[in-house]
């Protein structure tokens, strides 16, 4: 099958989705948020279709999802499967709706108490197209941490997935997405929707390390006094295409968005940071901040960095954005070498110092160590 060959008429039962898609049209290489990713070779390929089955869930201390099937989960979490989940009716990504159209059973996790949760996603299918969706509901006043980790064996495959996250009022969710992809032919397009209700806080960390082709599209909306604090690191090697796009909408007054992106690219890798922050008219006194910095380690590497803002209110307390792309600071590199530190180690110190702000904020060493391992792994 080819993903774009789906016949919308076959999905009559999902009228609203079909309607939405018809009005938006199918994604094309010219679609703004796919422009730099190159979806054509990915979407035009023939895949074996696959529908993740529902299986019995083994009790474990973490959640395991294998090719879209939940195989393990802790007892403390309520897991169910939804046939008609509520969808985001204003997502900018067509694939968000295609994904929902193709999925009959959305996985649903309810977080009803404070917790730290790990989600391990395994990707194992070859030459296959795997669509699935995950909904997470964080109950009012709950403080939860989720760490998502990838294990990738899937070659020549395409995975569609995404989170629909609902942060109820006064809740806090820290979502750490640790996406290490070691296979060049692994492709993934994920489309997320996050609703931050009144006084809630969404802390997002994304780490895209590796060689694959992945694009994550986030639509995040904030109600009154809600906050999103997002930090992103891309480290791409070889012929990787690793990207994240965002529409983050401050819809309620006193809402806050703070977003930083730090990118390191080598070989012929491409990174994409395309983030649009929107302040709607009712969102008075909100504050938005966005900043993207990139280091290209060699000539063939390439970064698309597009921080953007649209502000529809006159009363805003902060709106700052910026973007820089450059090489490692030669003077700094020389300074370290003059003190006897070997060139490669000096470079690594500078690269780490560049990412330090985000690792500090995350406050744990594990992902930093993974980064160092990947960074040091030389051909």
């Amino acid at each position, binding site marked *: 099958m080819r993903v774009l060959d789906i016949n919308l008429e076959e999905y009559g039962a999902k009228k609203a989705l079909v309607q939405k898609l018809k009005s938006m049209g199918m994604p094309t290489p010219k679609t703004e948020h796919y422009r730099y990713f190159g979806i054509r070779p990915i979407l035009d390929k023939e895949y074996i279709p696959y529908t993740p089955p529902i299986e019995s869930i083994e009790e474990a201390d973490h959640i395991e999802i294998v090719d879209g099937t939940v195989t393990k989960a802790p007892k403390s979490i309520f897991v169910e499967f939804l046939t008609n989940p509520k969808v985001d009716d204003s997502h900018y990504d067509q694939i968000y709706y295609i994904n929902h159209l193709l999925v009959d059973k959305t996985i649903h996790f309810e977080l009803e108490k404070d917790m730290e949760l790990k989600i391990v996603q395994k990707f194992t299918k070859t030459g296959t197209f795997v669509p699935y969706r995950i909904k997470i509901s964080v109950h009012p006043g709950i403080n939860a941490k989720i760490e998502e980790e990838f294990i990738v064996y899937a070659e020549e495959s395409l995975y569609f997935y995404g989170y629909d996250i609902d942060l109820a009022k006064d809740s806090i969710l820290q979502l750490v997405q640790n996406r290490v992809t070691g296979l060049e032919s692994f492709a993934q397009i994920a489309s997320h929707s996050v609703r931050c209700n009144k006084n809630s806080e969404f802390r997002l960390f994304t780490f895209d390390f590796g060689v694959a082709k992945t694009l994550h599209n986030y639509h995040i909306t904030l109600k009154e006094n809600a906050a999103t604090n997002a930090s992103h690191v891309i480290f791409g090697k070889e012929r990787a295409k690793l990207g994240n796009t965002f529409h983050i909408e401050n819809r309620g007054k006193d809402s806050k968005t703070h977003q930083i992106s730090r990118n390191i690219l080598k070989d012929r890798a491409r990174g994409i940071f395309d983030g649009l922050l929107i302040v709607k008219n009712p969102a008075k006194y909100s504050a938005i901040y966005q900043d993207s910095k990139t280091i290209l380690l060699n000539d063939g590497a390439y970064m698309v960095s597009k921080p953007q803002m649209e502000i529809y209110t006159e009363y805003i307390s902060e709106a700052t954005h910026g973007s820089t792309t450059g090489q490692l*600071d*030669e*003077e*700094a590199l*020389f*300074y*370290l*070498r*003059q*003190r*006897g*530190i*070997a*060139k490669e*180690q*000096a470079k690594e*110190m*500078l690269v*780490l*110092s*560049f*990412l*330090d*702000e985000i690792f500090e904020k995350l406050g744990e060493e594990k992902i930093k160590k993974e980064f160092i391992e990947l960074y040091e792994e030389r051909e």
Partner: protein
Amino acid sequence: MSTMMKIENLHAKIGDKQILKGIDLKMLKGKVHAIMGPNGAGKSTLSKAIVGHPDVEVTEGKIIYKGKDITNWEPEERALEGIFMAFQHPVEIPGVNNAYFLRTALNAKRKHLGLPPLNAAEFLRLLKEKIKELGMREEMIHRSLNEGFSGGEKKLNEILQMEILEPDFVILDEIDSGLDIDALKKVSEAINKMRTPDRTFMIITHYRKILDYIEPDFVHVLKNGKVLKTGGIEIVDALEKEGYKIFEEA
């Protein structure tokens, strides 16, 4: 008296600009060599050539250090062999912790010498002792390297690195500029304490003051990419009176 560094007919460019135009200079073991010269004479360029800065392209001549031709060595090889430069303008490196950086540098050197690395605690003890002597504030070693340091603090930090790394050949490029009176004294004391029969100093300065504290054995005057004059402290007296014009080429 044995030679520490011998620079022969050194020509060097930065970009397309010929800056060093045939430097001949011999610096001796255990001696302090002061280098003076007007702005733009090429003093910093000469230092950069000695430490192997990538901006400086040596087009002719050579640099012999401890009997070896180091003209084409990598900067870190020169450093590990004992060449140290206190930068005229030390760079700020956000995110690289000062103490961590210094320990990495010291352990690189110790490894080169076949010594075991110092662990964080051992190193910190050594470091605290040195910063106290220099009158530095302790919090500076826990900050990012040179980030937000005042001009004088940056210079002190260079001296701290020199003390920790114990190099054999030390270039001080205008270490005295930007230092207050007390700091200049402390820095001079630190340098004097490190004067040994095995260590050579090349002190670049515009001012007499530091040379009153650290008496040089030789004074060289550099101008327009060449050494115009070599002598003793009397040269400084003449310069103070007459300015650089007395050393104009005929």
